[in-house]
């Protein structure tokens, strides 16, 4: 019967640790492989295709990757080199977007993104204003509006997101503890109380997280 042995065996804990290490190692190898591969594509490309190849290098980012760093630097200089505004805008937008897409619990190269915002706003305003007979006030209005959009951070709060997802795992685990430890025969009131209180705690935290994230 269950309960005579612990539900989670020690070997499963050890197995899980090895599993996580194995997965992380594989992810590292995979991303390293693809960064090298896409960097090779850069050498064969010209113009916007080069931008796209560097974009793929960044999108396969891994922490402390020298390839990502090189791709960001190269892209910045390539973007500067475009004479046509549409191409320059494409290049800056690509760099900004690819960096945003590699955001995790922190934003790598945040300073680069900040540096790009006024440049993109300027290009958007210039390109838009061309069709509006080039009035300076109009440029200024569009520039400010675009800068506001670029500065707006609409992802849920990182802190409250972490609280939410870990609280969910917390209340699910607490419930399983309540079921397996608390409802053993005879009823184990200590586990029942501990599991019940931790369930309530995590559940409330989860609700709070959903509202504040």
């Amino acid at each position, binding site marked *: 019967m269950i309960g005579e042995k612990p539900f989670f065996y020690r070997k499963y804990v050890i197995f899980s640790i090895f599993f996580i290490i194995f997965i992380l190692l*594989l992810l590292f190898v995979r*991303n390293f492989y693809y960064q090298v591969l896409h960097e090779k594509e850069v050498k064969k490309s010209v113009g916007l295709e080069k931008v796209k190849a560097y974009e793929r290098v960044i*999108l396969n980012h891994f922490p402390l990757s020298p390839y990502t760093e090189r791709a960001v630097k190269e892209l910045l200089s390539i973007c500067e080199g475009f004479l046509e505004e549409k191409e320059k805008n494409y290049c800056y*937008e690509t760099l900004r977007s690819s960096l945003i*897409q590699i955001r995790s619990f922190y934003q790598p190269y945040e300073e680069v993104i900040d540096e790009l915002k006024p440049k993109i706003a300027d290009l958007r305003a210039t390109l838009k204003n061309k069709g509006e007979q080039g009035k300076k006030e109009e440029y200024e209005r569009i520039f400010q509006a675009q800068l506001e959009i670029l500065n707006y951070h609409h992802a849920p709060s990182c802190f409250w997101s972490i609280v939410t997802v870990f609280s969910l795992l917390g209340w699910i685990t607490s*419930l399983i503890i309540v*079921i397996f430890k608390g409802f053993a025969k005879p009823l184990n009131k200590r586990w029942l109380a501990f599991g019940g209180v931790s369930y309530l705690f995590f559940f409330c935290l989860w609700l709070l997280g959903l509202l504040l*994230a």
Partner: protein
Amino acid sequence: MRIQAELFAIILFSSLIIIYLFSLNPILPSGDAGGLITASYFLGIAHSPGYPLYSELGKLITFLPFSNIGFRISLLPPLFSILSLLMLYHIIKELFSFNEREGLIKKESFYLKIFPLMGILFLGVSYSFYFQTIIGKFYPLNLFLVTLLTFLGMKVLKEGFDRRYAYLCAFLLGISTGLHHTALFMTLPLAIVALFYFKPFLRALPLSLIFFLIGFSINLHIYLRNLKDAFAVVRKEGFALNFMDIILRKFYREGESLRVLTSAFSTMEDLLSASKNFLYMIDANFGYITLLFFILGAFHILRTKGKLFLFLFSAFLMFSFVLSKLTFSGSIEGNEGMLYIVGNQYFLPAFCFYVIFFVAGIYFLTEKIKKFKLLHRVIPLLFVFLTLIFIPMRYTQTSQANNWSLYYYSKDLLSTMPISAVLNTYGDNKSFDTWYLKLVGRYRDDVCHTVVFRYESLDWNLEGCKPQKLYEALFPEVYKRDIIALIKEGRYFSTIGLNEIHPLHEVAHTKPYVLSYFYILKESGLQKEKINSLEVVSLEKFLTPSYCLTHGTDDPLTFAQCRFVALAYLNIASSIIPKKPEGVFRLDTTIRYGSIQEPYRVNVIIGKENEKYLELYERIINYNDRRKAFLLP
């Protein structure tokens, strides 16, 4: 033998993990995966029934500092595929441990080791399982819950009733409502197990119901995030989102959960076609020859373990023929939508139960030839090694590792938009993937992206124009729903080309504009100035056709998207008038969106200036021939 078998198991699992990981889509898979990724990133509400469990687990994995957000969330399916295979391993082991208890086989015998491995290999390399593992969807997570419930049911049958199993099953069923509702099909097989222990089960029933409700409370995610106005796929401007409507899938009208359940059993007419379709899926995944072993396995389990047979077979029936009757009774001839959106996704649990019976069938066969010692040993190993052949086959045929097509389609669609344009999209592929680029990737956030869920609808989802306080200053017409003003200003672009059922058909016509259409009011003339300023040819450099020629997958949704890229080249070619015309290329066809057909006509005057675009069109069309999709009959 024990160490050898365990080592083999570790090697096998590791190989499958490596294969799955290296087959994953690098960023943005097709179908509703884009919506699921976006909903996860925003802790939002995916398409009905909302999938809160997937959204939250998806959000958790976005904190991993590797790759991009799309790829990270796509890691969830392989993770749960591996866990499902691990559960299957334990289920088959448990199946043989019944024999062990009854003295039919020895503890730690060869069978206890090799047959579970055979099972995980058969399922792990089957087409649908592999496909769902690498495409960023929730079906493997759903399968994991089903296998977990199956394992618990078997435990009860083996060890006797324990109220904790009842509570845990109820809780897991509740949690499964935060995912695909098909996991609830396990209620019937579990109820059969409960009947064998009727009195103790009745005593455990009230608390089980409470645990079910606690599990169901995961759906509060939908209610609370809606209050927060978080990203919601099914939100329409001017309509309040109703919590129960999302859960009951009322959004899908004819596909609404309760309506599907009640209408499907009002008639038994299409049961035969549903069964045929399911058998077709069995053939595609395992081959008809395996049916023989399935029958042998069912016979063997029925003969030796009647209660277990009832439990497992009822679960198989629920996930195969009953589910088929509900969702898979239409024609599959040339219908990749039916095959890939229903057949290839919904039946993973049925395939899992099929494999259990199949493995039991091989065991039965090997038992029958026990006196031929060599054959007795070799046959199971032969089945294991034969299955290994499918690993490279699946990789070369279906892998998503180089499939950037969907990502670049959406990126190119946005890249070709003028600054501060309004882009309207229709259909999962186009809408969900553009949301990902625009909202998660913040690419071209100067564009206001609206989405319609029905071809003829003008009720927009405005998630792509949020927050209103910032976008309203630039797009006041959008918030006033003044589409005519937007068309007049020449800012309105849409992926819908207008047919006669569309309300705008009377007032506007369309001009192909690379990957979308530019709308022109009929009454205001042709707005020549605006059309000339579109410079379609100059936008060609923003397109990325290479991935529609190298994606290496047989995913029909990728094919469909790439065929739109091919049409973009026709649009470009038609906008060029060559100095020395060499001929004319005419295409008069229809673009199909489910039952809706949209006319597409183009006239290209061929010349040196545009022949490369026509060549690209042909190459993309040939490479993305829908007949290459493995499941198409």
